[in-house]
């Protein structure tokens, strides 16, 4: 029954604890053994998030909606002006959904290890569960806000002059994959940031600034077609570019073909995740001593 740490080998139910040298194995099996804890931690993060708030889970909707209203006023002149042939609020909100998921995950997960310091110093479990649960708990908020998007899509669909007509297409099937890409990006970045934050709290102070910068290099308020053709692939190194443009393509049928940009974004997201996993494992050994 004993689960195993990177530094341990299992034979005949024997757990060997010894110092780890070098990089060490990823040992993702450990996560599987503790899968129920992932569920409980995600559930806790969700439960706790809106406790003692007057509006409760409505915040999951209000946050992106309010941002959309602000951006529409600033950039779109609410509902009237169209952008890239689409009503601006719709254009913007479609991108805000995955962005909010990502930004929230970054903020919560980046600080998650410090917030749960008490658990880390007192009991063993795969530490990765903490940032993972923070990232996953955002999916529920995402789902709630997604319902609003559907309402908006229906509204604009029946407004004859809106410029938006919903068409069923195979592209919709890509949506879960795009959500996964957003999660992979969020988790990859969170693994790096949360682990680094244990050693240097500077990371925590840097987080809001980093998120803000990231927001501007992601085509949320504008379209990536604004970027010169030659630079697009470089632009797509930001995996969130692929996610956001992918969402628009799948849901709104925008022209921007995800093609090469998508491949670049996906590759970068995967690299971020894998290096994040190794980095986290490497740092994990000293969490209890350093935190």
């Amino acid at each position, binding site marked *: *029954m*004993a689960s195993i*740490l990177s*530094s341990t080998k299992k034979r*005949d*139910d*024997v*757990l*060997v*604890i*010894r*110092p*780890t*040298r070098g990089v060490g194995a990823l040992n993702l099996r450990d996560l599987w053994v503790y899968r*129920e*804890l992932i*569920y*409980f*931690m995600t559930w*806790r993060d969700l*439960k*706790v998030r809106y*406790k*003692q708030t007057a509006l409760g889970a409505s915040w999951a909707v209000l946050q992106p909606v309010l941002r959309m209203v602000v951006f529409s006023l600033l950039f779109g002149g609410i509902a009237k002006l169209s952008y890239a042939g689409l009503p601006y609020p719709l254009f913007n909100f479609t991108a805000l959904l995955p962005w909010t998921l990502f930004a929230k995950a970054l903020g919560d997960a980046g600080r998650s290890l410090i917030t*749960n310091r*008490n*658990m*880390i*110093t*007192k*009991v*063993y*479990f795969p530490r990765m569960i903490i940032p993972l649960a923070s990232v996953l708990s955002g999916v529920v908020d995402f789902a709630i806000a997604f319902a609003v998007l559907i309402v908006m899509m229906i509204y604009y669909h029946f407004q004859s002059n809106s410029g938006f007509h919903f068409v069923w297409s195979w592209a919709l099937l890509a949506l879960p994959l795009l959500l996964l890409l957003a999660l992979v990006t969020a988790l990859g970045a969170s693994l790096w940031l949360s682990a*680094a934050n244990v*050693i*240097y709290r500077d990371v925590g102070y840097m987080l809001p600034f980093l998120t803000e910068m990231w927001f501007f290099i992601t085509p949320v308020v504008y379209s990536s077609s604004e970027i010169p053709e030659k630079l697009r692939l470089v632009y797509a190194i930001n995996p969130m570019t692929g996610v956001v443009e992918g969402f628009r393509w799948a849901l709104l049928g925008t022209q921007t073909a995800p093609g090469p940009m998508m491949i670049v974004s996906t590759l970068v997201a995967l690299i971020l995740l894998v290096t994040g996993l190794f*980095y986290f494992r*490497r*740092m994990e*050994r*000293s969490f*209890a*001593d*350093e935190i």
Partner: protein
Amino acid sequence: MNEVVIRVDKLGKQYRIGLAPDRYRTLRDTVVDTVTLPFRTARTLLAGPSMRPGNGKGTIWALRDVSFEVQRGQVLGIIGRNGAGKSTLLKILSRVTEPTEGSVELRGRVGALLEVGTGFHLELTGRENIYLNGAILGMKRTEIERKFDEIVAFSEVEQFIDTPVKRYSSGMYLRLAFAVAAHLEPEILVVDEVLAVGDAEFQRKCLGKMSDVAQEGRTVLFVSHNMSAILRLTERAIVLEKGKLVMQAPTAQAVDYYMSSGFSDIGERQWQPEEVPADAAPFIPLALRVKDRQGRVVDTMRSTEPITVEVEYKLSSPITGLRVGIYLLTLRGEYVFTSFDIDQPEKFELYGARPAGHYISRCVIPGDFLNDGRYALAVNASTFRMKRYFQDDRVLAITVDGTGAPGKQWPEPRLGPVRPRLEWQIERLNV
């Protein structure tokens, strides 16, 4: 049943400690350091703190070269003073932290209780916390569901089970937390000083549960400062001193060794400057003395006669609210009393702020008070809820001789640490 389930081999753990710069820093140093800082930071961030054993300054071995074995079904006590490495050992065994050298082999599922209520969230209800805490301790959801009613019954918080735990009293909170932990069923249980919290009733309940666990034939590692609990629950014990294993024996023997080691037996204990931790400043302890009526330093006192206890110390700068006091304990670690030099309201008024200087705080322990036996004196200098400047839990051992004490006409041991001379009246009612 001679199967070894825990094998600890040459285990060691090194910690880095903050190190003060050992020479004057020049502006040039500062500038160079500042410029190279981002690079050095990046290196630490990427490579992680070095885990290789080093012997440089700024590191200490919290544990070194510790080896022992535990057989299935054995209950092993781990005793040692604060900082002896007990907690570090438990943290390695429960895999919270990695060792720096050596290895541990464990056969079977390990459940560690380094604290009760780990991961409890104040905003969640009792019910929710049972599930969360159970999962953190490694229980499966089905297991928690099966034991749920039992846990609630044990905790005695039935009516409040759907109330957020932030509205619980501290007693209820502890009972619920312990109830979850007590229903963990690992093959190897590692328990830290979790029993040292809560009221007497709660402690009794915890100890009862612990001995149940022990009787079920599970392997238990138990750390406590409470020697009577160690004696009651464990068969064998190991004694740690400054990170080294110094004794491994049947419990009674180990406890005796622990209780009599490190004591000064001559009625006086003096502290050398290098023995005093740096964070004690501005409090500098100098000596603790026990004197008889004639003012002689003694290590043995008569139960019937008063003795004087003196704490001599210096303050290098003034401290507001300082209280200097003693604890008297039995050699089994049970407290007899605690007393501070400004307990009395008029002293409290007078010594609210103590200026820098050289002091002796002196008190008299009255005669006809202590039973015969051996006692330990501990010293504490602190400000209430602010700072503990200095504490030494086992400074001096004193022997109390019961000659002439009440009831000595019968050569029997009297229970309890005190032996007061009480005024009895005997009234005959039927004439």
